[in-house]
Structure formats: C-alpha cells, structure tokens
C-alpha cells in the first residue's frame, strides 16, 4: 500500500479520536464525570449520520443531526445517571453503550444488523485518488476538531469552566455556593455527547460503512487512555494523548504487515494499553501535561495594577 496513504489515514484517525477525547476531557477532565459509555454516543452519531445520509440529506445536515441526537441521548442518560454516585454512573453508562450496540446488531430492519450499511463519503470528487479522498477528510475532520477545541477551550477559561471545575473538586461545596450541579453535569454530558456524535458521523463516512463491530467497548477505553495519558483538564495534552495512542495503535497494525511475529500484535495492544494505564496512574497521575489553570488576563492585570499602586503610595 501507498506509504503516504498510511500517514494520511493516521492523521484522519487522530483527528476523529482527538475529538472524542476532547469531549471526554470536557466531561471527565473538567466536570469530573466518569463517562465509561463514550462509545454509545459515538455510535448514536454514527448511525444517525448513516441513516440520514441514505435519504440524500447533505452531509453537513447529517453531522448537525448527529450532534443533536447524541446530545438528546446525553441529556436523557444524565437524568437517571446523575443521581448515581460516580462509580455507579460509570457502570450505568458502560452498560448503556453495550445495550445500544446489541440493539443495532440484532435489529436488522434498523441498519442492516450485523452486516451494517454502506455510507456515502461526505464529499466525493469523481475520479479522485485515495490520497485526495484522505486529504478532503483531513480538511473536514480538522475543521470540526478546531470548532470543538475552541468551544472547550473558551468554556474551560470562562466562569462556566470555573463552575464545573468547582463541582468536580467538591460538589457539595459547589452546591451550597450556588451551583446547580445537576444542571451543570447534564450540560457537560450533552455537549460532550454532541461532539462524540459528530466524530461518529465523520468516522462512518470515512469508513464508507457502519457496523456494530465498530463500536466495541474498547473504543471507550482507548479514549480514556488518550485522556489519562495526555492530561485530564488540559486540551492540548488530550490531543497529544490521542496522537500518541493512535500512532501506537495504527502503527502496530501497519507494522504487522511488514514483520512476521508469532502472535498478532493487535491482541498484544490491549495488554500494553492496560500496562500503560497502570504506569500513568502510578507515576504521572496528572498525565503528560498537567491541568491548565484558568487563564485570566483580567486577574493578573488587577493584581499587579494594585501592587504597583501600593508601592507608589508607600
């Protein structure tokens, strides 16, 4: 295969999973919600996109629909889930993802069951090479990634970001200081789910098909590794984590085409990922890049302005 295509393909994957890990960063890194059902919202976005694009709706409407439908499910799951303690929330949403996967797998009428359905690419140019296709996808994916990144970055440095971080730190204290924790958590889950949904739509149009087997729970755990490795609460770190994990994951898949090994390295991946999580949590629990503090020029200006005025006065 064309080696450049490997690289372009890798870049697309980094973009798509970068988006999913950013969405988990909003939920877990900033709001402290242990969403172990990330793949569920990725799946909802993917199937929404696939089913809608079959009716001939333009791709941007499909992506917006993916975001909205995923957000609605994010809100629905938040209603019972937020009454649960963090560890039970994790179990509940993990089960939710598996239930959804089994539904699309067994309900043949919905989207072809186990066989899935084919999905047309968002933008296709007649007679274009694979390289051009990949470049178009890079443009589309990174445009969406940029929007997600800017949204989360703006949120994280606003009073809203301060409030959800406060809820993460101590939800009782935040509640008696006027933060409606249920509302903030539901919003974080909605927004995070919408982003994961868009990523799901982008993923299936890039793969030309949607199959239940694309939404195994391992996706959730891979995204968690990206966030934990990169640094929860740091958007750049999370993108770095996504890049490293994707390079490793895709790299081993490519390498096995060239090297003859006694075992399939894809199976070894899971063991290595498990070891990586343990290693990161033991030796660098804050991740590669530590949480970014709230950047506020106004705070610094006021503080140093005052000190300067004081030293002048004395």
């Amino acid at each position, binding site marked *: 295969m064309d080696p450049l295509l490997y690289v372009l393909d890798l870049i697309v994957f980094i973009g798509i999973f970068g988006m999913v890990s950013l969405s988990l960063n909003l939920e877990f890194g900033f709001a402290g919600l242990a969403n172990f059902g990330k793949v569920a919202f990725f799946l909802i976005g993917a199937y929404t996109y696939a089913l809608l694009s079959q009716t001939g709706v333009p791709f941007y409407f499909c992506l917006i629909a993916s975001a909205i439908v995923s957000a609605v499910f994010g809100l629905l799951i938040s209603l019972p889930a937020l009454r649960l303690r963090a560890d039970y929330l994790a179990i509940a949403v993990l089960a939710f993802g598996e239930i959804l996967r089994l539904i699309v797998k067994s309900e043949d009428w919905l989207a072809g069951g186990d066989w899935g359905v084919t999905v047309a690419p968002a933008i296709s140019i007649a007679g274009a090479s694979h390289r051009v296709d990949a470049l178009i996808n890079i443009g589309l994916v990174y445009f969406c990634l940029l929007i997600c990144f800017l949204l989360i970055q703006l949120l994280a440095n606003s009073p809203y970001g301060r409030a959800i971080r406060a809820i993460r730190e101590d939800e009782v204290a935040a509640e008696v200081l006027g933060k409606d924790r249920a509302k903030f958590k539901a919003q974080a889950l909605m927004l995070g789910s919408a982003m994961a949904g868009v990523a799901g739509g982008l993923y299936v149009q890039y793969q030309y098909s949607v199959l239940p087997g694309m939404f195994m729970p391992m996706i959730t755990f891979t995204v968690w590794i990206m966030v934990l490795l990169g640094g929860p609460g740091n958007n750049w770190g999370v993108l770095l984590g996504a890049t490293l994990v994707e390079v490793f994951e895709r790299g081993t898949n490519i390498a096995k085409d060239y090297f003859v090994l006694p075992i399939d390295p894809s199976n070894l991946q899971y063991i290595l990922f498990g070891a990586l999580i343990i290693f990161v949590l033991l030796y660098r629990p804050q991740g590669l890049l530590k949480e970014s*503090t709230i950047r506020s020029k106004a705070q610094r200006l006021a503080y140093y302005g005052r000190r300067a005025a004081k030293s002048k006065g004395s």
Partner: protein
Amino acid sequence: MEDVLLRVKEVSKHFGGVYAVNGVSLDINHGGICGLVGPNGSGKTTLFNTILGLHKPDQGEIYFQNESISHLAPHKIYERGLVNAFQIPRLFYSLSVMDNMLVAARGQQGDRLFNSLFLRARWQEQEKGLIEQALDILELVELEPWAFTPAAELSGGQRKLLELGRALMAKPRLLLLDEPAAGINPVLGKKIFQKLQALSANGLALFVVEHRLEILFEFASWVYVMDKGTIAFAGHPQAIIDNPAFYAIYLGEE
C-alpha cells in the same frame, strides 16, 4: 416580624432513631453577630446544614426574609443570600485562591453555558468588578499574596481564612460560620471577629458557632445555647456567663 431575617420554627432532624435537632426554634435579626454554642454533638452543625438545605427538616419550617426555604435546593437558598462557611474547609483545591473566591460570587453572568460562549463581553465586564471585590476580601483575610496559589498549597489556618473569604465573596445577607476562629492564631482570630463586626454594622447578619467563647462573647449580641438537639436557653453573653446552668451543659457538671 419585619426585623426577623431568619426564623427557624420547631425544626427537627433525626438520623435513624437519633434526634440530632429536636424542635429547635430561633430567630436571627438583621445585622449583628448571633452566637450558637454547645458541647460537641449537641446538633449545631446539623442545624446549620438543615438551614442550608443540605438536610431536609423532618418537621418544622425555616423562613428566610419571611419566605419558607425549607424545601429549596441549597443553590436556591444561596441565591437568596444565605451563605455558609464550613467548619472543615471545603475548598476547590486544584483551583487558585482567586478562582475559589470568584466561584462564590452571586449572580454571575458567565457561569451559564450560552453566556460563557456567546456573551463574553458582558461577563468579562462583570468579572473585572468581581476580581477587585475578591482582592479586597483577600486583603481582609490576609491572603492577597497567595492569590494565584492553588488552594491545596495553603496551610490549615489559611484554608480556614479562604473558606471565610469565599463566603464573604457572595455578599451574603446572612452568613453562617462554623467555628471561624478554630485553628487560627489568637491575634488573627480576634482580628477576624473585629472585621466581621464591622461588616455586621453595615447590615450583614452573622450566625456563628464558636468554641472560643472568650472571643465570641466579646462580639456577639445574642447567644443561643444548644444541648442534646434543643435550645437550652438564650440571652445576652453576660447573662449566659452568669448562668450556672451554662457551665453544667458545657462542662458536663450536674
């Protein structure tokens, strides 16, 4: 009735078979420092948590500014200006001292999802004023040099001061303080009470649990004495000191 800011009426709260608070009634007036004392386990903190909405009372009603707040969520009670500082500080430890303060400001424009993204100019303008206000309070509690330090790096006493400062940031009408002077050096403890008294002269009402009676009795204008979940008696600090029953309750003498 107009003068009563907080009215607790026949409030009871039990956990299992234990009545932590049993038929407590009391009034807090506008302005001034009101004390709440009693031995450990007498129900002071449970009473505070019930007023705050963290516990729903099993019986009785709580009125704040003549409206019942017994069934409101804690954040709604807070919005009305009833604010608390915990006995054991519950800070947002990974946030800076300044951000801890700013979280607590009431009526923020920017802590709504839509506003934070799309009405940036509006909340940024408000934020400037809040930062100045936070710096004033940090100066008051002597934490200004640590404004950008993560709260986790503060000492035990400084954490208590930030807990207090954060509560003041809300510009409360009534402030519930659970042992504000505990763990703080005596000079600063007294200084804090002096500053609280100055604030109370401007209309802030304070309801204070404190075991450092020599400080509390100097500043409080009225004191409730709690024992075994009930209000044993109440009065001016001098009357409390002169009452032999008070020593019996506090020191466990018969």
